[in-house]
């Protein structure tokens, strides 16, 4: 009974002075409205998915996107196939959330370095994903006898998949998909209505 009464008091804002109740409802409405507005503006729903275009919502990742787009991996793997864990759904989304919030912070604060490297946290994740797909190939060769991490796959396969020249400037002027305007809800940016990957080969 007391619990229901507490809920009722909160819902009716009874702890607020009577004169302030209606303005408080309005102010809360503004806050919630702005929060809701951020959903389409930041294309928030896309972050739950696996589309590579999501990663170039911020221009800092253009070089990484373009180098991947011109690599052999474009046919087989997207950003998330390599860069988030795939052992279970919980660890995948926990990792995505943590990485994503960090990326958003860095981008907002203009902290981005000129050369982007894998973080210590990301290194084992990416290597595990190399092994996940290429298990058959590495099964026979001696590298499989190495402890994971010594050496890393990319210590030899140095061009996979982002090339050997790494800088925000390395491929920043090249063709990249244009994102849709944010004035209307458009969570899945495409080029002329088509996914970038299927557009390969008939670029203008």
């Amino acid at each position, binding site marked *: 009974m007391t619990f229901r009464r507490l809920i009722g008091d909160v819902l009716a804002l009874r702890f607020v002075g009577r004169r302030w109740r209606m303005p408080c409802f309005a102010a809360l409405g503004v806050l919630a409205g702005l929060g809701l507005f951020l959903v*389409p503006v930041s294309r928030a729903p896309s972050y739950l998915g696996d589309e590579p275009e999501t990663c170039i919502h911020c221009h800092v990742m253009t070089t990484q996107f373009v180098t991947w787009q011109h690599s052999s991996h474009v046919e087989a793997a997207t950003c998330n196939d390599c860069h988030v864990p795939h052992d279970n759904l919980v660890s995948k989304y926990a990792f995505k959330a943590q990485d994503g919030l960090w990326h958003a912070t860095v981008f907002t604060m203009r902290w981005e370095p000129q050369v982007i490297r894998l973080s210590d946290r990301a290194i084992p994740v990416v290597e595990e994903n190399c092994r996940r797909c290429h298990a058959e190939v590495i099964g026979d060769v001696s590298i499989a006898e190495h402890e994971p991490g010594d050496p890393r796959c990319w210590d030899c396969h140095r061009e996979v998949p982002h090339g050997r020249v790494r800088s925000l400037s390395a491929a920043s002027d090249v063709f990249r998909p244009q994102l849709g305007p944010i004035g209307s809800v458009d969570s899945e940016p495409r080029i002329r209505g088509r996914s970038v990957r299927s557009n390969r080969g008939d670029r203008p």
Partner: protein
Amino acid sequence: MSNDAEPARQTTTPKPPPAWRGWALFGLTVVATFLLGLLAASVLERRREARPPAPIRPIDEMEMDSGRWGENFPRQHDAYRRMLDDSTRTKYGGADPRDYLAETPANVILFAGYGFAQEYRQARGHVYAVEDVTQTERVGPATPSTCWTCKSPDVPRLMGRMGTAEFYASRFLDLTDEITHPIGCFDCHEPNSMTLRITRPALREAFERMGRDVDQVSHQEMRTLVCAQCHVEYYFRGPGKYLTFPWDDGLGAERMETYYEASEFADWTHAISQAPMVKMQHPDYEVYTTGVHAYRDVSCADCHMPYRTEGGVKFTDHHVQSPLLNVEGSCAVCHRWGEDEIRRRVEGIQDKVREGRDRAEAALARAHFDLAAAAQAGAADEELQGARGLVRRAQLRWDYVAAHNGMGFHSPQECMRLLGAAVDLAGQCRVECARILARHDVTTPVRYPDFGTKEKAQALVAQFAEGSPPDLLGEGAGR
């Protein structure tokens, strides 16, 4: 809630509106804010579409002031202005005007009788070029205007007005009022297309003599050649002090030696050994061409002015500086080790070259004193000519490495090869001196004076210059 409390409340205040009305207001505000936000975002986006691109302020063909160019290129100009910081230091370089003579007093001995024994400092950034050249002790009334050539964009303007040869032949101090702008945009860029260009005749002429057209090179090579207008070995040819690069036989130290031997050129006569010496002037471009980065077609600008991206805009970082001050932006673009590891690798290479330099400097200083001792023992000029030629050749090789910036990093193997040759030739010179001394009945060791500090070394050199040198021959040496 008790029943008898209700009437009391009703009598004091009116009944409050039910909670659903509050939440209805809340819901309406949410929808209104959301829609207004979308509208605002859309309006802002459309406004950006309508905004014309920033107007380009036309740049005059002869605009010397980099600030005026910078109005169109604020990012580049802002980076250029950062060269005003003259406190940056790396292990062996940076923009700090470190005193080379205090760090290495042996250099005073090696340059005895020449301006570099008076003052020899690390040059500060390009923005200080005019200020530094007018303040150095190496400039005096006899200095030709050739020394202005690399310091200011006013130089091509004056060359156009006076004629190139006439410019070189004029007096440095006569042009002090005309030359005010430090090295800037005009020196490397066309004013309107921003294409890279060569503004100094010496590089153009040197390329012509090598059978190459400096205007027919790739953009990537231009990103090196604009630097090679100045960061090269040069000399002042003939009485007209015509600025010339000694590249006719090639860019290597031995090829330059052949060139200078052919005309018996000497920058100065050494005050201690009386040997005819050649001063090498920062052959940065020549050394670089022998290194692995040049082999890979990496230009000067790739490391010293790397591309940057800020706010989605890519531009060239015009803060020209040691890559060790920006390892992440320079080296890490291609080399994937951590910054500390890269720095350790570079400094490890430089430490080795520095050690080689130290050995060559010690050998050269002793060779100069050995020659002076032989003269004190009574050897005639003809007798000493061969040994003097050896120290000249040895020091040319050492200086090719020492005068170039980067402590050998531009081409470590070539630098160590030349330092090895310098030590060998200085050793040959000293063996020859020992023979000459023996012929004059001196078999005791030469008494090398103390030149452990810059002041001691300069005082010692002054004694030789005044004709009252210390006695270098041991007690009881037969004379």
